[in-house]
């Protein structure tokens, strides 16, 4: 813990407000992410978890306050259901999309990035699926391929939008195990939106609770307290300890 407190701050939000059409859904967001930290974004449906993720990612400019981060070193794993299955992409081609910011003069993927894509696929255990259509992979495999693509972005901070949704418990556990090992190996800061809290507990206790238009840093173990859980998920007992 002492080591983590000395780790460099990779992202800092100061009194930030995020929302749409000028109306803030979340305000007073103060968050610091340090290297090696894995945070779960937790809250009831419609509380603004995705808004927080998009705000920290830079997809949603803050209505107030500021978010400081080296945008060149940010990786993103979207919800896999949001991706169009009509696109004819091999898994290798999908992973090479992670090098889009470093394309050659003629718009081609550079040789070193092709090698990087192969290594990223090896790292997530999909080396033998490089030429398979992405749409033909299982849910868990697709999630790992998207993580490989994010690794090719060479990130310091990695954002993941519901990486375990729709996956069976074994596949969800494998994905979270992979994420945890990346945090350990590479010192990444990871923020993931999650619903399967029980699956997350063995991997991290850090949480960003999103409720009532606010973001609170806390611990997943706080949810063992029924009053606290009600406070976060239903906004009840707001003044209880």
């Amino acid at each position, binding site marked *: 813990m002492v080591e983590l407190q000395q780790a460099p701050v990779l992202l800092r939000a100061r009194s930030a407000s995020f929302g749409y059409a000028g109306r803030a859904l979340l305000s007073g967001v103060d968050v610091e992410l340090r290297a090696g930290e894995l945070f779960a974004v937790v809250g009831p449906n419609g509380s603004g978890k995705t808004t927080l993720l998009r705000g920290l990612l830079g997809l949603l400019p803050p209505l107030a306050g500021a978010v400081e981060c080296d945008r060149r070193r940010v990786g993103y794993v979207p919800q896999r259901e949001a991706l*169009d299955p009509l696109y004819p992409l091999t898994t290798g081609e999908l992973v090479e999309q*992670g090098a889009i910011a470093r394309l050659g003069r003629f718009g081609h993927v550079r040789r070193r990035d092709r090698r990087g894509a192969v290594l990223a696929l090896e790292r997530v255990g999909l080396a033998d699926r490089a030429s398979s259509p992405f749409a033909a992979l299982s849910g868990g495999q697709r999630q790992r391929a998207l993580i490989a693509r994010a690794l090719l972005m060479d990130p310091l901070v990695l954002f993941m939008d519901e990486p375990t949704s729709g996956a069976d418990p074994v596949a969800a556990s494998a994905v979270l195990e992979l994420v945890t090992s990346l945090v350990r190996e590479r010192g990444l800061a990871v923020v993931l939106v999650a619903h399967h809290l029980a699956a997350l507990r063995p991997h991290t206790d850090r949480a960003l609770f999103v409720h009532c238009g606010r973001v609170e840093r806390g611990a997943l173990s706080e949810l063992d307290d029924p009053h606290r859980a009600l406070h976060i998920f239903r906004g009840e007992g707001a003044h209880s300890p």
Partner: protein
Amino acid sequence: MSFAEAFQFFLWAMLATLVVGGVAPLLGGHLLLRRTGLYGLVLPQFASAGVALGYAVLPWWIAVFGLGGRTLDEALADPHAASNVLLGFAALATAVGLAVQAAFARARATESARAVGAFAVAGAATLLLSQLSPMGAEYVDSLLRGEVLAVGVHEFEVLAAGGLVAVLLLLRFQNALLLCGFDPDTARVQGLSLVRHEWVLLGALGLVVATGTLIVGPMVLFSLLVLPPLGARSLSRSQRGFFRWSVALGLASAVAGLVVSLRLDQPLGPAVALAAAALSTAAWALSRRQRALP
């Protein structure tokens, strides 16, 4: 006319059709994947309205700006004389078509509703504007029927130049365009501008539609924009394979359409469209058969 004589007489028309057979499917592949394939139907119709408008304002144009010293009768007698003016109006009308699509999109209409609405507007405009110039009505009518009559070396050069620029744009931005369509959020996270890349695609589309509609007609153009990528999609497992198959099917459709048109003395447009449909159906059937094999 013998086959050899027809070959010589229609040489530039054939080369122009082959250019469209190579370029349009590359562009149509992006439209299909972005689920905006109906642009391929609507924009050539707008360009046709532009050609009709060009004929309607030609007398005024010659009176105000001149046309290389030609009189109106001389310009109307030689279809090549006014081609640059007509091309300008086709490009203008294509831009109007894109603006109409954007306006409908702001009104939150679905893609099919936007396309049907815009097609109705463009079709009505083509018919009404054609009434203002008998020569224009005849020319637009032959374009709509797919009769490629007036392709000379100048028209071919214009089409080839437009096609070359479009291909260079698509090759340079292909990876970025695909990511912007497939996963816009990740594209933005990596610093790509969605608006800029949309303009690249629309610019290439506008070039090909404006020149292609004027020179080989809307039927050849929209059939080669839409049908070869449809067939290629069923044959391809990768994005590289998809675009290669699209271009191969487009060129094969152009060649097959040309042969049928010359052999049977039929208009080129319908021949190319039916050849593209037959090849795309064959590609789909082949892919089904391959999947069914153990």
